[in-house]
């Protein structure tokens, strides 16, 4: 589904990514793990078009998407849930979800200037909304609350919900567990599995390597902008190098 070929990203003279290549197949959960600053977020930013590539290419199915700005990749079915969630804090929960459907709206230009209720009654938007409420009933209760006033976990749900509103075929998740209580982390991870089961392809960036590898099909380990190890989740879980890098060698 997604192919990244020799992608490099530079911030000024600093290299964020160095010739990274990876593949995500249909219906897989692929996780990218690595220490802070290893280039995981740069990779997701590059795929979604937030930062431009210096060299290399990125393909979604058979379409080259490198060079497209993020607002275009969303329209092609890439939902991005960035680190720190990036929800619209001063807007209401329902507005955040509505905005999630903007790419749907942009496909049909007329509806952008029309009455928003009319737009929301479109069948795809309606069914997406139902899906989101099905996954996160709490959001239905919080519909009119300011998004910024939600708790961390609820904000994460909203961020995922917002991405689902664009009817994505693939989700890019950046550290969904960041700052969440352990029980919530578990819940989110379960949800990711559930989304995969419903047909979505998922690329997950996590620091909590063990947890991520538990649910993933395959994984890549990044170090200093490069992919250093790749393999199935099982292989990686058993790989001493991974355990060393994450858990410290003296951990039992």
């Amino acid at each position, binding site marked *: 589904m997604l192919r990244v070929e020799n992608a490099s990203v530079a911030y000024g003279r600093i290299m964020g990514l160095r010739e990274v290549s990876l593949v995500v197949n249909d219906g897989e959960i692929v996780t990218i793990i690595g220490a802070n600053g290893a280039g995981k977020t740069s990779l997701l930013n590059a795929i979604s078009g937030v930062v431009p590539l210096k060299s290399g290419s990125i393909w979604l199915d058979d379409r080259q998407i490198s060079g497209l700005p*993020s607002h275009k990749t969303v329209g092609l079915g890439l939902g991005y849930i960035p680190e720190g969630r990036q929800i*619209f804090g001063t807007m209401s929960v329902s*507005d955040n979800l509505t*905005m999630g459907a903007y790419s749907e709206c*942009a496909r049909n230009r007329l509806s*952008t*200037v*029309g009455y928003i*209720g009319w737009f929301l009654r479109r069948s795809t938007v309606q069914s997406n909304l139902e899906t989101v409420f099905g996954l996160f009933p709490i959001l239905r209760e919080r519909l009119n609350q300011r998004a910024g006033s939600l708790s961390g976990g609820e904000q994460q749900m909203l961020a995922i919900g917002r991405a689902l509103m*664009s009817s994505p075929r693939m989700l890019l998740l950046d550290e969904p567990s960041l700052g969440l209580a352990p029980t919530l982390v578990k819940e989110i991870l379960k949800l990711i599995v559930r989304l995969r089961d419903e047909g979505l392809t998922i690329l997950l960036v996590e620091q909590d390597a063990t947890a991520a590898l538990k649910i993933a099909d395959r994984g890549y380990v990044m170090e200093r902008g490069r992919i250093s190890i790749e393999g199935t989740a099982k292989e990686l879980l058993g790989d001493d190098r991974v355990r060393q890098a994450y858990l410290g060698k003296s951990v039992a």
Partner: protein
Amino acid sequence: MSADQFVQYLVSGLTMGSIYALIGLGFTIIYAVTRIINFAQGEFVMLGGMLSFYLISAAGIPLAPALILSVLIAAAIGAIMYIFAIRTARRASVVSLIIITIGAAIFIRGIAGVGWGVEHVRPPYFTGSESISLLGAYIHPQALWIIGTTLVVVVLLHLFLSYTMVGKALKACAISPVAAGMVGINPRAMALIAFALAAAIGGIGGVVMAPSISMDFNDGFKLGLMGFVAASIGGFKSPIATVIGGLTLGIVVSLAVGVDWGPFTSAYKDAIAMMVLLLILIIRSGRLSAEERES
């Protein structure tokens, strides 16, 4: 000061304030979406007023279509300004972008001066010139048009921002352009819309105020300055805050004239308005910085 006079000060202040608010709205919209202070905002107001006169008197177009056409032309000029001057300047810092808008303002003013000459012009009133008595004060029909238009514009703007997708997208873009991009909103398209919209609102302001003040090619700077102050009092936040800012400014200026300040004369009214602005800013900064540090 008698009660009648007081009402008159309020009425006059509201009229002036509505003008400042209409101009301030343009500053707020562009600032919210792009973080640019658009020094050419006053020029859009001037364009609206001058265009309406020349369309009516020179081109002989009837009033209503002429007004609409003036606003549309102003909006188009705003869009052109964004495309050619702002979007081209990719590497520019915010200060540089502000200088670009100053350049654009001088350019527009210059073209207007060359094209229309230096004389001031006054388009006809929309309806009648007989003023209306109101609670012991008088109000000109055109002033009612000004106040009414401001209300309609701010209500429409509010509805637009709250009940259409593109309006909400503008808001989203104002909160975070990066996050807006991630849900499929094109921040540049939003900036274009913001410029066109601000220019249109500026044009509307020019169109409604020109019959009561007469307009010349030089008027943009002072009008822009007052609109900028109105937007600052409102905190560049929302259309409604800006309108409140504009009305506050108008009433402060009007009362500064009306109240006998002892040694002060009406000559200091603008200075008093600026003092109010400084006080508001400094008081608010105390609160803001406390909030910033806490979050």
